[in-house]
């Protein structure tokens, strides 16, 4: 029962593709069957290998790798079913066609044969003339299946190499099928080749997901092709794949789009390569900073933003003085090292948030959202450019220039040698010095050469007037800082009088600055600057402390118990810690908090009434008095007033000014007084300058008055003297009794 052409079979057995004749393994324990089948099979062009039971069958199978197996069911040792199961387990045996021979009466066997993996069956007794045709037919089917599998494998391979996958989306069922390469891109198991369309969308980066979903839906509805690029998020974090989707509609005979079909192309590598190319083109290799090309793009972007928002920005052009000497003496590597260190210092100066007075970005909001950002670029050998996006004031640029000069001027350690370089900086400002990139660059460059003429290690604005103005303001800013620290500020006090009794009930504290080289400087000249630069915070705290200390001193020296009203800037609340400043002042001085009065303007709660109420409640809890200053000028609706926990309203002096000549103003003042008093608030009129105004205010029963008619703002000593000399309250009017 061995194969007849055994030698031939052995030579070619393991390579079905090259052997001339297909090999059939015939397994039967009935010798007669084997003998009778052999002739017809050989005549039909097959090489026949035989076995008489399951065990032999497996041996022969392993040795000859037959193209087809004819297997008897019932046999001694190992039956046909067990042999099939065994053969199907091997990789070679998975797809080999198996023709099972069974008795006609044995339905169970037929079922079992299919279950175990038989391809077809023949009932006994076998017609041996027909058998070869059946075998040939099965082999043709098998070859077709092999070709399909091969072409599928080729397609998979081609797609894998091309990093291209295809997919089809059934619009009606929302089901999609995809190729193995798509499964790879989307991080699916390689056997997962179909599922809900939504399961693909779920893998799209969240920012683009809705976009992809809508585009696909619209394309399906309109039977239009579409393409998109996006990232697909894989199984692991940070594991992503950039893909380009191309899709086309598939129409039924009525022209209705039933499916979308398309491809995914994995473009991760080309996206990475593009970024590398971009980096090479736009970044400096030595320092990693943007180069001239990138600077140019940032500058153009900044110009567009500034045009749109009427913004202002500055360009700082700088080079390193004596860089050439370092390079020549210590070598290029040392030079590169120095450039890197300089670039680090430049970046670090810009990161320092104190440098600019622009508001800090809100949580979750980056500079991009503002449409501007600062850029440090290296544009040549030792030349750097700093683009300061969105500055409020020219002196911001001066401040940055000064910090850069200081930072760059610190010593460097290069190869264990201490090196010193300095920098000279030219500044151009948009829009004053130019409205396009070239002009701004040229003017910053020119400014730098002017700065060098004036001596190295300095900075110079292109425009002389901006330079002077910025320097003046910048120096004033430094001087104010110094003034706060060195106590050059002084408080003046203007008395507030009770309308009925004429008694002095308190004073309003007004800050003055005695500049060492100049005369007194008016608050209107330095308060806005203090607000812009944030100096208002230490200034405001100083005013609080000074007022508290004055209250104490007047009580202790027997002058009297007078409340002091201090003006507060909205900036102190929005950028500072006003509440804790007040609390600290009250605690540290030990004064009765009700003697301290804070004057706030309406615009503090203009934008957010709820926040305003909360803020005022917090102040009230400290026990201090609250007055609404400049009342009547800001908020048009008076309805909010009853919600606010305030003690006093101050009628703006613009209404008082024309009180006696303008009936409209008189009506407003009357209304404010009535309204305030009905709400249980005390009402004070400021800016009272003559008796006519006072008469009307008395007639309207205003509670308190303040103004030059009674007294100008006085120093503490003058106030004490004024009090002592003052015999009759409100005597100047001569109308009271």
């Amino acid at each position: 029962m061995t194969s007849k052409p055994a030698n031939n079979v052995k030579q070619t057995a393991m390579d079905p593709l090259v052997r001339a004749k297909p090999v059939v393994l015939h397994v039967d324990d009935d010798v007669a069957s084997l003998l009778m089948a052999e002739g017809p099979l050989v005549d039909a062009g097959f090489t026949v290998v035989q076995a008489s039971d399951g065990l032999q069958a497996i041996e022969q199978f392993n040795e000859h790798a037959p193209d087809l197996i004819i297997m008897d069911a019932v046999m001694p040792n190992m039956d046909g079913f067990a042999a099939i199961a065994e053969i199907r387990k091997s990789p070679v045996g998975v797809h080999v066609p198996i023709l099972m021979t069974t008795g006609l009466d044995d339905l169970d066997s037929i079922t079992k044969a299919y279950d175990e993996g038989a391809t077809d069956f023949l009932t006994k007794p076998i017609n041996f003339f027909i058998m070869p045709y059946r075998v040939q037919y099965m082999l043709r089917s098998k070859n077709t299946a092999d070709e399909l599998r091969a072409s599928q494998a080729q397609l998979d391979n081609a797609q894998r190499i091309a990093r291209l996958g295809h997919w089809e989306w059934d619009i009606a069922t929302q089901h999609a099928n995809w190729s193995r390469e798509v499964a790879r891109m989307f991080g699916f198991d390689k056997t997962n080749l179909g599922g809900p369309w939504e399961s693909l969308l779920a893998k799209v980066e969240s920012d683009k997901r809705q976009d992809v979903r809508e585009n696909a839906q619209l394309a399906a509805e309109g039977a239009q092709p579409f393409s998109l690029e996006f990232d697909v998020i894989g199984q692991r974090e940070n594991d992503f794949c950039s893909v380009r989707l191309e899709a086309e509609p598939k129409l039924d005979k009525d022209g209705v789009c039933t499916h979308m079909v398309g491809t995914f192309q994995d473009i991760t590598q080309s996206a990475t390569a593009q970024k590398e190319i971009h980096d090479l083109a736009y970044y400096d290799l030595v320092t990693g900073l943007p180069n001239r090309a990138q600077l140019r793009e940032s500058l153009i972007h900044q110009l567009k933003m500034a045009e749109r928002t009427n913004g202002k920005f500055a360009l700082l052009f700088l080079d390193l003085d004596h860089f050439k000497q370092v390079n020549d003496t210590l070598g290029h590597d040392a030079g590169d090292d120095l450039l890197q260190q300089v670039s680090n210092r430049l970046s670090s100066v810009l990161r320092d948030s104190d440098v600019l007075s622009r508001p800090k970005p809100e949580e979750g909001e980056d500079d991009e959202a503002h449409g501007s950002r600062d850029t440090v670029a290296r544009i040549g050998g030792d030349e750097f450019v700093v683009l300061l996006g969105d500055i409020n004031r020219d002196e911001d640029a001066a401040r940055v220039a000064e910090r850069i000069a200081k930072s760059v001027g610190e010593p460097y350690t290069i190869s264990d040698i201490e090196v010193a370089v300095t920098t000279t900086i030219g500044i151009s400002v948009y829009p004053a010095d130019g409205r396009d990139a070239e002009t701004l660059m040229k003017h910053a460059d020119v400014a730098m050469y002017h700065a060098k003429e004036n001596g190295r290690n300095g900075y110079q604005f292109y425009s002389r007037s901006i330079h002077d103005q910025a320097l003046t303001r910048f120096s004033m800013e430094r001087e104010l800082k110094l003034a706060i620290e060195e106590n050059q500020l002084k408080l003046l006090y203007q008395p507030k009088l009770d309308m009925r009794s004429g008694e002095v009930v308190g004073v309003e504290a007004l800050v003055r600055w005695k500049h060492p080289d100049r005369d007194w400087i008016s608050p209107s000249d330095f308060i806005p600057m203090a607000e812009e630069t944030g100096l208002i915070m230490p200034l405001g705290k100083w005013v609080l402390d000074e007022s508290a200390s004055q209250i104490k001193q007047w009580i202790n020296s027997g002058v009297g118990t007078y409340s002091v009203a201090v003006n507060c800037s909205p900036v102190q609340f929005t950028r500072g810690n006003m509440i804790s400043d007040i609390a600290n002042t009250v605690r540290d001085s030990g004064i009765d908090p009700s003697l301290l009065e804070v004057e706030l303007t309406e615009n503090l709660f203009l934008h957010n009434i709820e926040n305003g109420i909360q803020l005022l409640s917090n102040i009230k809890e400290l026990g201090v008095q609250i007055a609404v200053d400049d009342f009547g000028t800001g908020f048009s609706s008076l309805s909010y007033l009853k919600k606010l926990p305030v003690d006093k309203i101050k009628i703006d002096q613009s209404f008082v000014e024309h009180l006696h000549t303008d009936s409209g103003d008189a009506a407003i003042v009357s209304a404010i007084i009535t309204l305030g008093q009905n709400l249980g608030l005390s009402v004070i009129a400021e800016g009272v300058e003559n008796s006519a105004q006072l008469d009307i205010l008395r007639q309207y029963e205003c509670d308190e008055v303040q103004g030059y008619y009674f007294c100008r703002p006085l120093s503490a000593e003058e106030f004490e003297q004024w009090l002592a000399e003052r015999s009759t309250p409100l005597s100047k009017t001569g109308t009271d009794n």
Partner: protein
Amino acid sequence: MSQIDQSALDNIRALQRPGSPDLLGRIVGIFVTQTPDGIKAILDGVASGDLESVRTSAHSIKSSAAYVGAIKFSSTMADIERAAREENLALCQQLIEGLDNQAAAVIAELNVVLDQAA
């Protein structure tokens, strides 16, 4: 009455390839040589109650008997195989009555075929 369907033997003759050993002779030869042992195994099996042995032997003879045209004999073997598979010893005992004689008749007739072929 003949035990052998001559058309079955004709079918085997038709399968004969020119230049090959005599197919009919080989198949009938194997049948007449092996069948007595198979019959003995069936009778012994029924006697000792080893129905598995009865079943495999009957199955084996069943198909070769069919090929050589011993239709009735093959059908008897099918009955015995089924009874053995169903473990019906009583039926097996009943079916083997006269089996010896039936087998002998088939073999005798096939021996004639062998003689003619030789």
